[in-house]
């Protein structure tokens, strides 16, 4: 496969031995497949999200809290059939949904796995926001809930911290496509069935970036998507090499962004500021 699945379009012929920009080959590599209770309330529900964390990533966020799997070698390679078996297992233990985390570089493998088994649960696409519209169109009618990040309103910051100088316009287009596919939010008995939630992680020293993201969301999408404002930043990955982000958020920084969230009239969720500790990093224990 000459890979053009994501906007990087690295065109590497990904295989077992050759890896793309994402750092992984053609077959899916899983770091964890388990119930996850720390997502937004309508995603976790009471039964937990059936979360599959994929290894590799098409971004290079220096502050990545999942650095062990996004940039290092943690995880186990499986076939699309074995991936489909994980859906059955998660369904059997009461998962509210099947949530694909960092899936953008595995679109083809995921689509193949769904040919083997189609879960009777909502399917969630939890991505970095750096997705290509062409690839997302393959998911039309398949993915029920989109849960993209929208990390930056400033491409210079995106380039510096995620090696991604075209992040802003790419994410705007990708999220626009996601909302086109799922324009309505449907929640039944407190559990989300369809729709889009846009996540934004507030970075220390970068309130301007965060407020810019919220302003873009309001301008481009109105309230067609919910927004999940995240305060769980803590210095991870290579953050210690970047003085501006080598600390946690202050109360004032976060509240400044939160004030914008309310002033813009956005719908959604906001984490408590004391969310920023390592309990949000799962154990990478897939075997």
């Amino acid at each position, binding site marked *: 496969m000459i890979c053009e699945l994501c906007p990087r379009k690295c065109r590497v012929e990904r295989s077992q031995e050759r890896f793309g920009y994402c750092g992984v080959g053609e077959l899916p590599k899983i770091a964890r497949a388990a119930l996850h209770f720390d997502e937004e309330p309508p995603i976790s529900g009471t039964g937990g999200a059936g979360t599959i964390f994929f290894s590799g990533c098409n971004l290079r966020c220096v502050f990545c809290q999942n650095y062990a799997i996004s940039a290092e070698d943690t995880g186990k390679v499986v076939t699309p059939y074995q991936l489909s078996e994980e859906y059955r297992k998660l369904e059997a233990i009461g998962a509210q949904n099947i949530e694909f985390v960092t899936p953008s570089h595995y679109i083809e493998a995921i689509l193949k796995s769904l040919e083997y088994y189609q879960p009777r649960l909502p399917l969630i696409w939890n991505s970095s926001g750096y997705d290509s519209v062409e690839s997302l169109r393959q998911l039309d009618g398949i993915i029920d809930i989109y849960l993209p990040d929208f990390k930056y309103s400033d491409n210079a910051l995106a380039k510096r911290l995620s090696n991604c100088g075209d992040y802003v316009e790419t994410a705007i287009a990708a999220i626009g496509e996601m909302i086109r596919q799922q324009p309505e939010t449907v929640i039944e008995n407190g559990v989300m069935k369809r729709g889009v939630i846009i996540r934004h992680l507030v970075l220390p*020293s970068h*309130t301007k970036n965060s*407020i810019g993201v919220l302003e873009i969301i309001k301008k481009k999408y109105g309230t067609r998507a919910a927004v999940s404002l995240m305060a769980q930043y803590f210095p991870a990955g290579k953050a210690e090499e970047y003085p501006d982000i080598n600390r*946690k958020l*202050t*109360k*004032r920084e976060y509240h*400044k962004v939160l004030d914008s969230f309310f002033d813009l009239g956005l719908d959604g969720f906001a984490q408590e500021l004391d969310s920023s*500790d390592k309990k949000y990093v799962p154990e990478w224990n897939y075997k």
Partner: protein
Amino acid sequence: MITYKLLAEHKQDPVLGEYKTYGIAVEQEDTVIRVIEDISPDREKVGRLIGLFNSERLSPSQLDEAVENFLYDFEV
């Protein structure tokens, strides 16, 4: 006469341990009349901000707005 001074505090964090953060104390005739805590852990920037407030003789009534502006892009 109004003078702006640097306020240093120690905070305890379960992950990062003890760290310092800086705010602003407003003094009038040697009496602290207002405090804004925990503006930023960047001592140098908060120090420059205070220098600017003192040199421009910022009115305390404009302090909140000035701090909010700083918190937007962390530029002095």
